């Protein structure tokens, strides 16, 4: 569903991401982890069509994000780490606008369902300016889910969410993946990645250090022992990159 081949991103003299190649098949959840400055957000933003790649090919559902951006973006949802809403629009107006962008016919029922799922029904007519950080995050997620995307990119999705919100989001991610969506989650919360993701993509200084299943990641560093957590694996790989 998501395919990245030889992706490179440079800013003048700085090479932010170099030669990245990976794929996210439909129905899988991939955790994108790495220290600050590893190139995670840059990769997600390039996949979302926000920034163009310097080199390489990035595609969503077979559509190249540079050559055929409209088709690729129509199948994609991106939830950034800092949810930015239109201050003067209400929650419902955000959903209404999103439905018209992605041409979702008769979106009302699905929008109502999402508002109920994320406990936003009471805030339906509240303007975004008056929402808390967590609620803004929930609105951004509802907007992202509205058009039933085939690929979903999350950048630090749990920031600001309350425990119930976290649980709802986790469940919704599993549901979406089970329904066939390809999901990528970038996060520093390794517990979340271990809990939710089937596969791991570990980046460090713009390069891929590891990609594969989480079990494979643990097996790769057998010297850490059978009880090693993802955190142990992370530190081992990033502090001694080969």
């Amino acid at each position: 569903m998501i395919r990245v081949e030889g992706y490179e991103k440079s800013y003048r003299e700085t090479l932010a991401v170099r030669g990245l190649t990976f794929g996210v098949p439909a129905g899988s959840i991939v955790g994108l982890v790495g220290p600050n400055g590893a190139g995670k957000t840059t990769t997600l933003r390039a996949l979302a069509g926000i920034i163009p790649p310097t080199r390489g090919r990035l595609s969503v559902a077979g559509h190249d994000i540079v050559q055929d951006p409209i088709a690729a973006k129509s199948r994609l949802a991106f939830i950034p780490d800092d949810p930015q809403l239109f201050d003067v629009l209400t929650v419902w107006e955000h959903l209404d606008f999103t439905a018209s962008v992605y041409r979702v016919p008769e979106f009302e029922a699905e929008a109502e369902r999402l508002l109920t799922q994320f406990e936003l029904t009471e805030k339906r007519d509240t303007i975004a300016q008056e929402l808390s950080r967590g609620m803004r995050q929930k609105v951004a997620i509802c907007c992202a889910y509205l058009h039933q995307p085939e690929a979903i990119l999350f950048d630090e999705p749990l920031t600001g969410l309350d425990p119930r919100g976290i649980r709802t989001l986790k469940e919704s991610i599993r549901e979406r993946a089970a329904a066939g969506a390809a999901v990528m989650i970038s996060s520093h919360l390794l517990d979340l990645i271990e809990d939710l993701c089937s596969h791991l993509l570990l980046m460090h200084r713009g390069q891929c250090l590891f990609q594969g299943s989480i079990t494979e990641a643990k097996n790769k560093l057998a010297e850490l022992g059978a009880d090693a957590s993802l955190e142990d694996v992370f530190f081992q790989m990033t502090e001694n990159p080969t």
Partner: protein
Amino acid sequence: MFHSALWKLIRLKWRGGFRQLWRSLKTVRGAVQVGFILLMMAYGFGSMFFVGRMSSSAPEATAMMTDRLRDVAAFGLFAFTTWAMLFSTGEATVYFTSSEVAFLFPAPFQRRHLLTYKLLQSCFGILFLSLMLSLYFSRSLFSWLSGCVGAALTLTFIQLLTMNVSFVRQVMEAKSDALFRRVLGYSVSVWVLIAVTQMVLNAPSGDFAALALSFRDSTAGRWLLAPFDVFARMIFASDAASFVFSAGLVLVLDLSLLAAAYRLDGLSLEAALAISEKLTARIKRAHSKGAWHMFGSPTSQVARRKIRRLPFWNGIGPIVWQRLTTNLRTSLKLFWVLGGAVLLAGGLTITIHRKAPENPFAAAGAGIGVMIYVSFLISVSMQNEIERVGYLKSLPLRPIAIVLGELLGFVGIMSTVQGLFFLMLCGVLPSIAGWLVCAAVLAWPLNFLLFGIEKFIFYLYPTRMAKGAPGDFQNAGRQMLFMFLKMLLLFGGLSLVGVAVIPGAMYRSPLLAAIPAIAVLLIECAGLVPLLTYAFHRFDPSVDTPG
């Protein structure tokens, strides 16, 4: 053509803006603020209309004024366009808010849809300004409608030209060599500096019309103003035929620029995003450090600039030190502005003194006026530090020490620069050296008063910097109301100083003027300190502030 969802977004934003306006009208404070801005708008429109209509009833005088306007309009447009290109390139023209980036960039829109969306958003401002300009110049126009259409086409041209220059610059930044860019930048700067110097030296007086005519008659001016002449001829056309001809030319120019913008915009998507992010970061910086810090962020190079730690002084010292260090490292533009202000004020003083050597006070007054205006601008930039106030309140220092420390940092920088400037002027105007020394001394309490009043109003009515929504009359009204309040307080304070100066002016004695003036200013400053302390103490950073 244009995506229906973007029409919907524009419509929803307008609806949201008016919803906010309606809600604000339901509170007394909101109603006062909205009423105030409406009153000011009515006053602005009314006065422009009447000034335009009633300024002179004689037809000869009107014809002369129209000729004069035609002469200076091309220069005015050139100056405005240059200013727009220098100071708003890449920001005002292609700025996407962070919410627009989050929602619109990953959405299935073509890039030209987004550009059209931005252009449509600017239409409201262009129409509003065109209406105001056409009302103001109505007496010199053959029809009000032609003036309004002409102004709208001209403003559209400036908008599109600025946008294209911005795109070219972004593409150049991404693709061309840094040395080439620097050489090009310096060459243009030197050329402009020479042209401006020629213009100032050749002008018979310092007023706008004289400067404009002097520039128009210079070699560089003739070439530079030629493209702008068509706009002047269109707006101030004498009949319908000449208007239609000029407007047709301008329309072709506008459409060409629009086509170029669509073409170039595809190359500069990433740069537009970078600009948007930069602006969002600036607004965040302004929230925590003050509006002035929008214009620079610390880098490892500036981290080398250090100030020795100041004594504790009951807590004032560390705050002053922090302010000075932050200014030194993040506000490089502050020093550019201060340096530029000194050059401008000095140049103006020398020019006026050369033209009218018999009246040194006029020359000194012009220079001092520029410096006071700069103080005023910098004091306004101290707003919006809501997050910083939260931090300051957490410090184990007395509120009086914090407010004094906060003020003295800015007052110190500003007064030192102004003081040095006034002392330098003594060399140019030795006959009034005594008065200039007094001005250098007076700068300290005067800046304290100016900055103190700004801080006092901010602590009482804190506002966050935000990009205004359409129809956000409350925000505009609030800003204007605060400005009015500030001017009122300042006027009250300075009136007392003016009274104190009278004996000195009567006996032409700088000392007799300065001593009571300083005494009154010091009393006013001393009175302001407890008020500031009280306002700081009652400030609640947890209360969500509008704006």
